[in-house]
């Protein structure tokens, strides 16, 4: 006899997870589908990349831990969880957004925000996030002005 209902979730790379329903519905997306279809829901992740499977596993794990441990341990656990490279962080962000997992999204945006603050200058931000300087020549002057304004 099942003590709690389980949902079977299928990811893009055809892996099937079984997670407790109470955890699965932390994702607003899954929650909606579950109420629409049945307690056993198949979620087809068409647009996510292969490592999606790992992300979702981690997301669920994160939520599970959330329910169990005290604040101090939780924040330690969380900081370790988010110590990943920019690539993984990006995937976590997109996954959290797609699945609508608020707590995970909060954690990722905070981490990315901290990265930005630690960068201190524009060039380092561009390198970290792999972003090109696409300002037109006319705008460059304005950006130069902004940079000199930005000093105390």
């Amino acid at each position, binding site marked *: 006899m099942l003590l709690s209902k389980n949902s079977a979730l299928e990811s893009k790379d055809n892996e099937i997870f079984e997670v407790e329903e109470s955890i699965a519905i932390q994702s607003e997306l899954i929650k909606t589908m579950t109420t629409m279809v049945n307690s056993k829901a198949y979620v087809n992740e068409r*647009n996510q990349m292969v490592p999606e499977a790992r992300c979702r596993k981690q997301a669920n794990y994160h939520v599970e831990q959330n329910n169990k441990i005290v604040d101090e341990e939780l924040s330690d656990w969380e900081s370790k969880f988010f110590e990943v490279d920019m690539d993984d962080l*990006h995937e976590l962000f997109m996954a959290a957004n797609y699945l609508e997992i608020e707590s995970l999204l909060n954690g990722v*945006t905070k981490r990315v925000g901290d990265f930005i603050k630690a*960068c201190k200058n524009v060039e380092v*931000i561009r390198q*970290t996030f*792999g972003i090109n300087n*696409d300002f037109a020549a006319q705008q460059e*002057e304005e950006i130069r002005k902004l940079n000199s304004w*930005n000093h105390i």
Partner: protein
Amino acid sequence: MSFSSSFRKSSCLSRRSRSLAKTAALATVSPTVNQPEISSSSSWPPPSPPAEAEEEGQSWSTMLPELLGEIMERVEASEDQWPQRQNVVTCACVCKKWREAMREIVRASSPGSGKITFPSCLKQPGPSDFPNHCIIKRCKKNSTFYLFLSLTPSFTDKGKFLLAARRYRHGAHIEYIISLDADDLSQSSNAYVGKLSSDFLGTNFTIYDSQPPHSGAKPSSSRTSRRFASKRISPQVPAGNFEVGKVSYKFNLLKSRGPRRMVCSVKCPLPEERADKHLDDSKAKIAEGAAPGLAILKNKAPRWHEHLQCWCLNFHGRVTVASVKNFQLAATVDPSQPGGKGDEEKVLLQFGKVGDDTFTMDYRSPLSPYLAFAICLTSFGTKLACE
């Protein structure tokens, strides 16, 4: 269904807008981005995403504005004060997308807060609830005045530099050129933001803005306006000077050493249009019968203190040296209030001496830091007619 540009409180976007966002992401053809060189000597910053990620439209550099906004919002909200607010400006300097996202967030965040983020904020209204504290430093040697946003309560700490003004004499006529650049104080500079000019006696002043105060405003053709080669960034903005205020001083004829009377009429900036349509409309209401944004301010009359034998105003500790320059302005006409009626007890601008060459300037909405600074400068300019 259009992409919503408003940034909502809840972190998760609605399903419909996100699924559209995802379709758009796939439809976008992302050009291959040249990867910048990464310093191999340090482990920071972490390696940037591989080039293959660009083709799917799934990387930081091709992230959609709505999603980018989630991150930007968090940075903006946590970096409230200078110097941390530098991080907000830094984000706006990264690339076009980041610039647009951050500017939108700053526009939408806490209306009425009067936070100073970008140079353009210097011509936006100050806070509604409590004044912003600033310091003005005078340098007599080069006739220059420097405005700083206070970062600590101390009068000796300068703070964040905002504007500088230099006094120039043209015969009997005096002008103060106001600039974003403390080292470049000329009308032809890119950093020029406006000027103050006074009559011979130093009793009537006109405040000019290098930018039009509202759409359709015409530049003034004052005697001293000169043609100059404008190296402006946006040629659509007309070059010239636009009159935005007048300040006049009258002297108390009954008591020869009595306090002078100040009257200012200024075109105050209306709050910028916000992305969130549900803004408090009473703030944007135009006072009936008055020009858009026009405010009329008068100085509060000090009380004669018989025991101390002097004129007194309560500056709440922000002014510590007696000086005829010290003043407090309250509005009789206030465009930011319903019906345009000013509250004569509410001090909108306070200015006063705290050291030999150090003055405090506390201002609030509907005045902008630029207007407040210009009005304070007039107090220095009336030396000729004092006592």
